[in-house]
């Protein structure tokens, strides 16, 4: 890639920890007061860079300009900090304020208690309470992710967190996943969302959520389970039909024996030489006593039986395959650019991927610099996550909500709940997955629930419905960004609205809003 004056290579950028978002926002609003209107190109670009526009995002754009904003998003100088009331809400959740190990220990204690109870009503009630507890934790994890997506100042990063969460999809209702779901998105996915792809693969491999979901916690010498090995190559890195064989799947399964979730009880004593080979990282454990130490051959490479190093070696081999660069680039382009991304664009991104050793930020830079991105403005249909997040961003424009539960209900109804994909392939990225007649009707109904204020977003849980409030969508933000380019049919519809609520509903239902 040629360096352009506007886009110094990322290697040259300082990867600073967050400068206060308040500083940037403060400067942004000051500059915004006499800023000129955004051009159509600015609006279109920014709608792709974010889940959707809100005033703070527009102000930041005006203040920094496109390339500086983009650079700061990629190197993390735009923070993940949320508005104080949202942070307070999240911090009130057990899933956010309790370390993962503690949550799992609590679970073990609950299970022990139940196990020792005599059969009967009390035991049944205790079991039910435990299920409820697990469901509460999952729901908190879902809410935390939604709140980050809506309020996170670094919208590009928030989109990437969602993208990877979907790419490395785990199903919340399986086993102990509910107990570690919040940890998975915030501590496994988020820190690597814009880093090296290989590190992201290793982070998911070392997460209790993935080990549990794809059964590798059960994969041991003599008891081989090939589920994770297969999906690691098929869904996470190489793609089906990219050349690996059934033999490769079986060899990788052997390599992965012993990788799992750390035990919560004191482990049996090991001989010192074996104990040395144990690897612990948070709740991940590699247990040499469960590992198959034979030599293996993966994708034509000989791997000496040695323990945990086999795993890192295998991940290196896999993520360096050209098929991996191609597969990941195509999925990114499918998410951000087009249901059928132009092959030239994917090839360009894959070249960047290979040249930079899988640097996600560099690949994004190639994609956002491309003419193919600009050519796709207004043609990409929002998936339900994008629709719900963008509707709330547009309608509430940064105003903190008090209750995130309605967000989850809407995503459920639209068929794309967070942690809700039963199978490990993640939700579809193309419009045919979301634009059937049944889904369109649902989408209009949810637009109505948001547009009319007939929802409980502003009503804290447990309080009776306040009622009466509806958001105001005819704002400065709307006139600066949407009004000028509405299609004639949408303009007709808005003119027929008899109330502000109906006007809001029509706007959120319109193709102009649902395509970006």
């Amino acid at each position, binding site marked *: 890639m040629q360096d352009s004056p506007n886009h110094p290579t990322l290697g040259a950028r300082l990867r600073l920890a967050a400068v206060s978002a308040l500083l940037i926002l403060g400067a942004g609003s000051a500059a915004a007061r006499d800023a000129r209107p955004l051009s159509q190109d600015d609006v279109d670009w920014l709608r792709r860079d974010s889940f959707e526009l809100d005033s703070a995002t527009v102000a930041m754009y005006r203040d920094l300009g496109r390339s500086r904003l983009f650079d700061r998003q990629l190197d993390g100088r735009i923070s993940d900090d949320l508005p104080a009331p949202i942070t307070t809400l999240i911090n009130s959740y057990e899933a956010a304020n309790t370390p993962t190990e503690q949550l799992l220990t609590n679970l073990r204690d609950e299970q022990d208690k139940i196990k020792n109870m005599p059969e009967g009503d009390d035991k049944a009630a205790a079991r039910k309470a435990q299920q409820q507890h697990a469901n509460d934790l999952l729901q908190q994890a879902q809410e935390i992710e939604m709140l980050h997506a809506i309020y996170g100042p670094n919208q590009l990063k928030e989109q990437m967190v969602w993208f990877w969460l979907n790419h490395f999809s785990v199903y919340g209702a399986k086993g102990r996943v509910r107990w570690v779901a919040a940890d998975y998105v915030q501590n496994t996915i988020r820190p690597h969302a814009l880093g090296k792809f290989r590190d992201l693969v290793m982070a998911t491999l070392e997460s209790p959520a993935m080990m549990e979901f794809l059964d590798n916690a059960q994969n041991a010498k*003599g008891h081989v389970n090939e589920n994770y090995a297969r999906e690691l190559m*098929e*869904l996470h890195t190489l793609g*089906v039909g990219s050349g690996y064989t059934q033999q490769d799947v079986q060899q990788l399964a052997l390599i992965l024996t012993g990788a799992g979730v750390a035990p919560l009880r004191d482990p049996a004593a090991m001989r010192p030489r074996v104990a040395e080979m144990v690897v612990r990282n948070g709740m991940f454990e590699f247990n040499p006593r469960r590992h198959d130490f034979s030599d293996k051959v993966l994708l034509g490479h000989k791997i000496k039986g040695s323990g945990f190093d086999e795993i890192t070696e295998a991940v290196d081999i896999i993520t360096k395959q050209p098929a991996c660069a191609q597969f990941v680039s195509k999925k990114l382009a499918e998410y951000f650019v087009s249901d059928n991304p132009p092959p030239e664009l994917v090839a360009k991104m894959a070249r960047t991927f290979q040249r930079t050793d899988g640097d996600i930020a560099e690949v994004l830079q190639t994609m956002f610099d491309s003419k193919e991105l600009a050519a796709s403005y207004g043609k990409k249909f929002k998936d339900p996550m994008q629709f719900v997040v963008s509707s709330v961003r547009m309608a509430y424009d940064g105003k903190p909500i008090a209750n995130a539960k309605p967000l989850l209900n809407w995503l459920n109804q639209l068929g794309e709940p967070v942690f809700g994909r*039963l199978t490990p392939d993640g939700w579809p990225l193309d419009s045919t997955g979301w*634009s059937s007649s049944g889904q369109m009707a649902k989408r209009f109904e949810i637009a109505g629930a948001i547009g009319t204020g007939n929802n409980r977003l502003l009503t804290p849980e447990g309080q009776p419905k306040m009622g009466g409030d509806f958001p105001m969508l005819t704002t400065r933000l709307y006139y600066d960004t949407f009004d000028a380019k509405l299609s004639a049919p949408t303009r007709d*519809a808005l003119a027929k609205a008899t109330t502000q609520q109906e006007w809001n509903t029509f706007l959120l239902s319109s193709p102009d809003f649902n395509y970006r």
Partner: protein
Amino acid sequence: MKRREFLLAAATAAVAAPALSFSGKLFAAPANTPRFLLVFLRGGYDCNNLLVPYGSDFYYESRPTLAIAKPDPYNANSAIGLDNNWGLNPVLRDSIYPLWQKRQVAFIPFAGTDDMSRSHFETQDNIESGESTDQRSNYRSGFMARLSGQMSAVPSIAFTDALPLSFQGSGHDIPNISLRGNPKPVYDERQASILAGMYRDTSLASAAADGLELRQTVSKELQEEMMKANRGAPNAKNFADETQRIATMMRDQYRLGFVDVGGWDTHVNQGSTTGQLANNLSNLGKGLAAYADALGDEWNNTVVVVVSEFGRTFRENGNKGTDHGHGTVYWVLGGKVNGGRIAGQQVAVNAQSLLQNRDYPVLNNYRDVLGGLLGRMWGLSGSQLQSVFPGAHPRDLQLV
């Protein structure tokens, strides 16, 4: 109705082509038109613990913890003998076995596709596409959609959250509706028409209009039905509730339907007559029985086929589960199905007959089998069948 009348009615339906409403589905189908429901078990169910090859010692050697005991009148957890080789998982004793005794169920072992990826997603898409694996050309076209296109008087619907690939690419909108939630409409006619109007110039025009329209119609019908049946909450608690609603719609309005059921990917502790697989099978069996029941006499005019993307490893794995395999068992049910038998080409179940020393081979390609069945149901011509399953060799297993 005799089989001959069934076929005659079918042939008439295929040629009758009344003028269509907006998208060709919101009208009652002619009486006596056959109806077909495809049930897709997503996750690759373990067919070997549905249709138990109890005559095979190899089965018992391969599954030390998962095998289901040979038929034994004194053991309620033993397989129900269907013939000298095959038995049924006893969790289906009260739901599917009575239909078997009425000769309304046939099983087709060694069924599936030529897709060898053993990937759920690849193989599901492959089956739903209906094209041969090495000739797939259109990744957004499914065989149910093409079948629907051949028969204008056979309105189609998917009972799913999203439109499945099977029903994509028909050229006209095929509606989908999830029967798990409350389908009550929230917009009046004026609002619905304004909302639909915004999409008039887009590719989603018919999806937007049909979605709004279908909600009005379906909701009314299901509300009435539910009041009649005196049942409470509209939330379908399980598959049986859902199939009763499906039956209501299939009975009156639709002739070609699709529903999927997930949760069959049992790598760990799948169980045999209890546990995850047994629960799923039991739920499925109750749902299919409820569907048959709710259709009443119209069950005689109905065919249900249950498919899955693949079977599983014949041997159990180290965690009392099974991994991805190849050939599986399909089910064919219906009041006039030529059932009570194990249909299609078969091979002895032993180590030598396994594919890659791992799983069932596919001897009955789904394209050939479904082509033969659907062709017979609706009296489709050879060229019509070719457009549904390009390049297939439809085989008539005399299932109807």
